[in-house]
């Protein structure tokens, strides 16, 4: 495993490797997402209870589970970088944080938009929405801490510690919020959840989920590549790459001018 991984631990190799897979990832994401979204919006049957508002489910649930998943991914990256002093892991964690925050925000907004017709109110202190909100705070904390350090290597280390503390806390927070929610639930509210899904609802969901996951991977890849460049800006390979890129850019501008 380590032997296989070793060449990819080199920033230059992984920069070029991600550069190669990036178009494929993007194409696959577009394919799956367009199929999934069109299917979900136009062809999937309406829920017998929730009607067409159920279609929000196809965005809300993937976004919510991906937002948790990205946080765990960040925690794994932080752990790897701390234990094995593996600098690329810091770069990948830094690339993941904003993506995770955006998907948490999407889960929150779609949750509120789903809740309004269901509960008659935009916000309800439902267990899932509440822990999603706290997850957003955790993400914003990591991002803010990252931005507060000028030195990106230090920023990565500090954010890594915070991520690990957060990931230990996350299950506790989730559990405590769920427990608090059952404790304070006065009237019976229909919870946001997965009603028994029929097979013609499942397939568009699978496509949407895979599509969003691929999209997340694509965006993380793009950000990861810029993080590698910033962290290795003194390396000769970055220098040649940058000067090549800039000269190409200048040539293009000249062509445009002509």
């Amino acid at each position, binding site marked *: 495993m380590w032997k296989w991984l070793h060449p990819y631990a080199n920033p230059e190799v992984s920069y070029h490797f991600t550069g190669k897979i990036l178009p494929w990832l993007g194409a696959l994401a577009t394919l799956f997402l367009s199929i999934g979204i069109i299917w979900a919006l136009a062809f999937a049957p309406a829920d017998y209870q929730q009607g067409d508002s159920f279609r929000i489910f196809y965005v809300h649930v993937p976004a919510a589970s991906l937002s948790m998943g990205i946080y765990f991914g960040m925690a794994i990256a932080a752990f790897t970088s701390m234990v094995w002093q593996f600098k690329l892991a810091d770069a990948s964690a830094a690339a993941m944080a904003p993506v995770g925050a955006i998907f948490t925000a999407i889960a929150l907004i779609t949750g509120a938009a789903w809740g309004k017709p269901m509960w008659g109110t935009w916000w309800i202190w439902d267990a899932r929405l509440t822990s999603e909100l706290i997850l957003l705070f955790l993400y914003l904390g990591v991002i803010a801490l990252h931005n507060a350090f*000028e*030195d*990106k*290597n230090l920023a990565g280390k500090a954010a890594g510690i915070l991520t690990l503390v957060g990931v230990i806390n996350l299950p506790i927070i989730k559990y405590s919020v769920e427990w608090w929610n059952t404790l304070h639930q006065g009237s019976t509210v229909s919870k946001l959840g997965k009603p028994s899904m029929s097979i013609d609802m499942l397939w568009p969901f699978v496509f949407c989920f895979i599509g969003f996951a691929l999209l997340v991977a694509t965006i993380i890849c793009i950000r990861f590549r810029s993080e590698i460049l*910033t962290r290795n*800006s*003194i390396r000769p390979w970055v220098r040649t790459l940058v000067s090549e890129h800039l000269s190409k850019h200048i040539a293009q501008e000249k062509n445009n001018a002509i």
Partner: protein
Amino acid sequence: MSVNQATSLTPPLISVTNLTCIREERLLFDQLNIEINAGDIVQVEGPNGSGKTSLLRILSGLSQPFEGEVFFNQQLISQSREEFHQDLLYLGHLPGVKGEMSAAENLSFNLTLQGAPNNAVNIEKTLSAVNLTGFEDSLASHLSAGQHRRISLARLYKSTAKIWILDEPFTAIDKQGVRALELLFKAHIKQGGCVILTTHQDLLTFEPEQVKKITLDYVFD
């Protein structure tokens, strides 16, 4: 940039391999190799912002380099932290003196923390060595910056550490004090210790060839 021409057979006290330091995406030094032996006094020089303080902090283990390793007695300092810190005395820009405690209390705490032997009589003697007689019981917040520095320098007189890393030890110290410190350095290196320091003025009582120099000038402002 090897300081020592590998004349001695004993292994170096501190050695540094392929040290590269980047601060705020600026390269301060690249692929630095240093060996420091017992009995060396090393002066790190270079213009402002050239990474003198960064080098001293990396040598003391406070900062991690971008690349490269620091060895103490041929062991990585991160792996022999306790032994290394027992043999290390680092004085940075900041004196590490609490304003709410008296001069004597400050010195006593710092010495005890380092595990150096101390008692009331000792403390008084040490403070008088740095010209602080009569100030033992005054709160440090009532003392001047120079006096703070002298409180922190007083630890040198009682230190059992072999490695002294001193960042600008002579700031806010008068000529007499500088001379006294240099005598202290001489005694220390004679006993098999080493001194690594940065300073703007040249060392007065040392022969120029006695002082080993590390020049940092990889600056791009």
